[in-house]
C-alpha cells in the first residue's frame, strides 16, 4: 500500500517532466521524482516498532537483530540525496543561463536545435 503511494508520487513527478512546458515545472517534476525514490529507499528499511541500530550494553543479540531497523538503506539515501542535490543545483543553473539567452522559460520557444 505505502509502496503504491510512493510509485504514485514517482508517476506525478514523471508526468511533470514529460507534459509540462515550463523549465521550472520540469525541474520541480524531476525533484518530486527523485524524492519518491528517496522515500522508497527509506521505506525499505522501515520496521514497525523498530529501534535504533546501535547495540547497547546488556542487550541480547538475537532480540536486537529482530528489532533494529536496517541501517544500510539510510546510508544509501544520504548518498543519493547528495548526488541529486548536485544535479538539481546544476539544472537550476542551466535554467538560469537559458533564461538569460532566450528570455523565456517556455520549452516551446527554446528550440534552435532540430532534426
Amino acid at each position, binding site marked *: 500500500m505505502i509502496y503504491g503511494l510512493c510509485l504514485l508520487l514517482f508517476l506525478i513527478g514523471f508526468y511533470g517532466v514529460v507534459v509540462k512546458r515550463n523549465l521550472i515545472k520540469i525541474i520541480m517534476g*524531476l525533484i518530486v521524482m*527523485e524524492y519518491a*525514490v528517496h522515500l522508497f529507499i527509506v521505506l525499505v528499511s522501515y520496521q514497525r516498532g523498530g529501534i535504533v541500530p546501535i547495540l547497547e550494553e546488556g542487550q541480547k543479540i538475537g532480540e536486537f537483530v529482530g528489532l533494529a531497523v536496517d541501517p544500510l538503506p539510510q546510508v544509501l539515501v544520504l548518498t543519493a540525496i547528495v*548526488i541529486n542535490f548536485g544535479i538539481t543545483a546544476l539544472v537550476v543553473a542551466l535554467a538560469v543561463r*537559458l533564461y538569460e539567452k532566450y528570455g523565456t522559460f517556455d520549452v516551446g520557444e527554446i528550440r534552435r536545435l532540430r532534426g
Partner: protein
Amino acid sequence: MSNLPVLFVILPLGFGFLYILLARRRPFVSEMGSVAVTLTLFMLSLILIGAGYFDGQQVIRSFNLNMGGWALPMGINIYLDSLTVLMLIIVNMISFTVILYSVNYMKKYSSRSYFYALILFMLAGMNGILLTGDLFNLYVFLELASVSSYILVSFGVEAEELEAAFKYLVMGAIASALILLGVIIIYLVSGTLNIAYAAQFIQEYGMNRALYFAFSLLLMGFSLKAALIPFHAWLPDAHPSAPAPISAMLSGVVIKVLGVYALLRVGFNLFDLGNDPYFLNLLLVVGGISLIIGVLLALYQWDIKRLFAYHSISQMGYVVMAIGLGTGLGMVAGLFHLFNHAVFKSLLFLNSGALETATGTRSLKKMGGLARKMPVTAVTSMIGSLSISGIPPFNGFWSKLMIIFAAVLAGQPFYALLAVIGSVLTLASFMKVQRYAFWDKCRLDKKIYESDLTAPIFMRVSMLILAVFCIFLSFLILPGIYRLILSPASLDLLQGAAGYIGGVGL
C-alpha cells in the same frame, strides 16, 4: 597486480581535484598532467592484458579485490575479468588521444583547468563502473560520469549548448532515477547490493515479479543512457553541441560504458538472462530498429557533427543486435564492433573538430575542396569513413562481416540483411561527407580558404594515432590475439551468472 586496478579510479579522481585546487592560473600544468595521467592509465590497461593464465583454449582472467580488506557481503569489491580489461583498454585509449587533442583544440576556451578536471572525473566514473562489483557503487560512479558529461556538454555556454545540455540532463536524470529504483528493489528482494551475492540469490530462488520489475527498470535506464532507438532523442542534440573532444568521448565511450556495458553486466551476469529468448529477442529487435532508423536519419543531415551523432545510434544498433543473437560468434562480433566503433567514431569527431576550427562552420554545404589544404585531416577522415562503412582492409569491415556471418549462422538471415542494408546506407552518407567536405569545389570564403588551415601538431598526432589503430585493430581477429582479448571477453558474458559468481569466489 594486487592493488593495481584501484589506480584506474584513484589517479584521475585525485588529479582532477588537484587541478581545481592548484592549477587555476596555469592551465599548462593541467594540460600536461592530464596527458601524463591518461597515458599512464592506457599503459596500465595494456599491462592488464598480460594478467591471467592460459588454459589451452583461451586466457582466463578473474581477479577479485576486497576494498579495505572487508570480507565480501560487508565490503565493496573490485572485480576484474576479461570483459573489464577489454573495456578498460577502450576507455583509456580513447581518453588519452582525446586529451592529447584538446591540448590544442581547447586553446580558444577560458578556464581550461576545469575542463581537464571534469574530463578526468568522467574518466574516473567510467573506470569505476567497469571495475566495481557492487550495484550501488555502480550507480554512484554512473552519476559521477553523467554529471561531468552534462557540464562538459554545456561547456561553451552558448544558447544551443545550454539547450542540449538541459535536454541531456533531464533525460539522464530520469534514467538515473529508474536505475536507482531498480537497484533498491534488488536490495529489497535479495538483501544484498553485491552483484555476485545477488546473482547467487537469483540462482537459488529464481526470478519473481519484483525482480522482473527491477530488471525492466534497469533496462529502461541503461537504454536511455545508451540512446537505443525509443530513447534516442537526446543524443543528436547533446553530442554535436559539446566541444569536439567531448563529442568524441561521449560518442566513443560514454554511451558504451554507461549504457551497453552496464546493460550487459546486469542482463547476463546478474539476472543470468543469457539463455532467455525474450531478452535476446528484445536486444535483436531494438538493435535492428536502431541500426536502420539511425542511419536513415543520418542520411539527410547537413551538420557534420549531427550526422556523426546519428551514426552513433546506428552503430550501437549493430553492437546490440550482434549480442542479441546469443551465440558465441555473435558476442565476439558485437564486442569487436564496439571496440572498432569507439576508435573510428572518436576519429571522425576529432576530424570534425579540426574542420570546425579551420573553417568556422559545421555545415557541409559551406565546406569543400579542403583535401589540399588539410592533408592529415583529409586522409584520417577518409580512413575513418571507410572503416565505419565497412570497406575491406579496415577494422569496420571485419566486425561487420563477423556480425553478418553470426546472424546467418544463428538462423536470423533477416537481421543479416538489415546489417547489409545499414552498411550500404552508411557508405552513402559518408560518400556525401567526403565529397562535400574535401573533394568538391570550394564554397568557403576566399579569405579563409587562402589562410593556413592545417591543424596544430597535437591534433594531427592524435588523429594519426587513431587512424593507425583503425588499421591495426583488424589484427584482433588473428587466432593468437583473438584468444587473448576478444574470445575470453565474450566468454565472460556467455558463462552468465555462474561464471561471475565463480570468478568473485563465493
